[in-house]
């Protein structure tokens, strides 16, 4: 962002002379190299049918140690209605057994078909005892379900701790970044100490976000990571040794290259065109409206803050804010402010929209599409949709997924506009293509390349169609890259917090203009998305989708 090495303006000869050096001297390129090294590793493991899974913090309820052990899950079909919730399980089983057992029902929409899958799971830190098994079995009438519990009993006898895998991940990522720091002229040893503490704070942020009850509130790791960093920087101040490990740009940009691989264009084909109408028609209109409203009406001086708030509001909240902020080299305080605002309003909208939709008697599909197009974070969209019903949940999730896919296009276009117009000296001649390339944030190239490569090369290599898409999503993205991306964003948010100052944040508020921008933009988004939702799902243009 603001402190990028490539933002400096050396004279043209010197810059052209050092063009090749940029490949190993700038954070942008290092983000591409490290990001693609992780992608290549994930693809190779999946290609050779290896079983590597990047370690993540698991859901836990009362004992935080559970978070470091992977759940054991078994697929079931038509699990008894009486056990389909934590409450029902608790009622039917002894408390200790019920706390360990999980039932999960997934409702998906693929190629015009509604698909349901069910799994039961067990927290594996404590193996299922014979007493646990014998408490569950009498509640089940079906032989298939009894077999599933027997299998779960067997599978849980060997707990799967994540401690060592997490340490390996921390060291491997740290080694990659230390190499980058050393090659860019920094001190790898200084970096390592700070990085270690930042990673531990990241683990703490994930630990809190992944507690069973906390997951229901929609307060993600990004919030806690930011808060921990802010607590340190605004009380005792961030020590220099800790700051040395705080390579925010490198963490964010590497995470974004990995995020690029998760943007699969084949997903749109699978999900259908109605979601495209809602998500893609409205999003550019809202971005443009908010940009002009922020710069012309509110006369906000920081164009980068305006575009970050606009992207977060219209695309997908925090992820879009990160991508856009990196593309326009925004200040860290601007990103902190936008993320904070987005997280608060996401929770408020998740609470308010379902009762409002119920109160006015809006159809499930229209309501789902409306929420999918307006609530910022995907988790909150799914939660709000689930309250209205399965159909609302599916439509909301589909619209949001399609909107998520826009993140790459938005980041790319914003980067181009910034390089060619906003950052350009108005008196200077229009820059040449090569000049644009020199100034273009290179990690965006990695971001877009990863998306195109995964969408149009890797999916066909893995079998094409739905089979290829599922294989890539499960074996490459699900197993390795999305977890690594999550860790990198988490580290980045700790680092941003450590570098943010409340006084500068207050300065960014500029008489509450960013909040006014968010509220007006979100209001516009709500109106436009509602119209689009009725057009696509409410019978104005197309009939509702038969989903029973």
């Amino acid at each position, binding site marked *: 962002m603001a402190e990028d090495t490539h933002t400096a303006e050396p004279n043209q000869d010197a810059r052209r002379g050092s063009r090749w050096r940029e490949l190993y001297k700038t954070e942008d390129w290092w983000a591409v190299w490290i990001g693609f090294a992780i992608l290549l590793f994930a693809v190779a493991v999946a290609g050779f049918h290896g079983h590597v899974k990047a370690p993540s913090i698991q*859901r836990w309820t009362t004992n935080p140690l559970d978070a470091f052990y992977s759940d054991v899950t078994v697929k079931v079909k038509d699990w008894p209605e009486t056990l*389909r*919730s*934590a409450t029902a399980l608790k009622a039917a089983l002894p408390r200790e057994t019920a706390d360990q057992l999980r*039932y*999960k*029902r*997934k409702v*998906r929409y693929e190629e015009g078909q509604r698909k349901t*899958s069910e*799994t039961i799971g067990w927290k594996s830190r404590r193996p299922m005892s014979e007493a646990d098994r014998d408490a569950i079995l009498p509640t089940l009438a079906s032989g298939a379900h009894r077999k599933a519990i027997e299998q779960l009993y067997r599978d849980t006898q060997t707990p799967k701790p994540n401690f060592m895998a997490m340490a390996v991940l921390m060291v491997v990522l740290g080694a990659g970044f230390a190499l980058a720091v050393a090659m860019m002229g920094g001190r790898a040893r200084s970096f390592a100490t700070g990085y270690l503490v930042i990673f531990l704070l990241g683990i703490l942020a994930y630990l*809190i*976000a992944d*507690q069973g*009850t*906390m*997951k*229901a*509130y*929609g*307060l*993600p*790791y*990004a919030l806690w990571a930011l808060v921990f960093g802010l*607590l340190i*920087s*605004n*009380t*005792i*101040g*961030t*020590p*220099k040794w800790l700051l040395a490990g705080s390579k925010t740009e490198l963490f964010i940009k590497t995470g974004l290259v990995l*995020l690029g691989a*998760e943007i699969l264009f084949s997903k749109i084909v699978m999900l259908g065109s109605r979601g495209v109408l809602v998500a893609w028609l409205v999003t550019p209109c809202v971005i443009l409206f908010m940009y002009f409203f922020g710069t012309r009406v509110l006369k906000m001086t920081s164009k980068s803050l305006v575009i970050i708030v606009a992207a977060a509001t219209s695309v*997908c909240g925090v*992820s879009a804010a990160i991508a856009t902020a990196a593309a326009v080299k925004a200040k860290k305080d601007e990103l902190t402010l936008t993320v904070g605002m987005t997280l608060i309003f996401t929770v408020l909208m*998740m*609470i308010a929209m*379902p009762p409002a939709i119920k109160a006015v008697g809006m159809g499930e599909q229209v309501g789902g599409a409306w929420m999918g197009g307006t609530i910022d*974070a*995907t*988790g909150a969209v*799914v*939660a709000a949709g*689930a*309250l209205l019903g399965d159909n609302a949940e599916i439509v909301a*999730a589909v619209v949001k*997924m399609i909107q*998520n896919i826009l993140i790459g296009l938005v980041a790319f276009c914003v980067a181009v506009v910034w390089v060619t117009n906003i950052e350009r000296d108005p008196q200077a001649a229009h820059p040449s293509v090569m000049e644009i390339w020199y100034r273009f944030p290179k990690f965006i190239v990695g971001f877009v390349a990863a998306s195109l490569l995964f969408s149009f090369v890797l999916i066909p290599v893995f079998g094409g169609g739905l089979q290829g898409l599922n294989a890539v*999503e*499960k074996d490459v*993205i*699900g197993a390795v890259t*999305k977890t690594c991306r*999550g860790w990198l*964003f988490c580290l980045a948010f700790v680092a941003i917090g450590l*570098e*943010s*100052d409340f006084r500068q944040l207050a300065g960014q508020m500029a008489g509450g203009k960013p909040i006014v921008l968010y509220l007006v933009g979100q209001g516009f988004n709500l109106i436009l998305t509602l119209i689009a939702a009725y057009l696509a799902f409410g019978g104005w243009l197309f009939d509702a989708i038969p989903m029973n």
Partner: protein
Amino acid sequence: MSHRINGPEKPTRLAAWTRFATGTLLLGGLIVTLMQGYTPPGPAGDVFRNNQLHDINANPLFYTDVESLVPD
């Protein structure tokens, strides 16, 4: 405090650590309170209660983080 950045302008070391301890206690208190599973009464708490009942994770930022949107 010359070796630090971003901190308060020139607080004493004790004042800075007191602020840190107070902040940590307040934050810890908030986290522990939230973990108890309190939900607002009426429609304002409906989503939270439904999430708790059906073990729905409202935290994911991107669609690939949502368990139900990616293949098993």
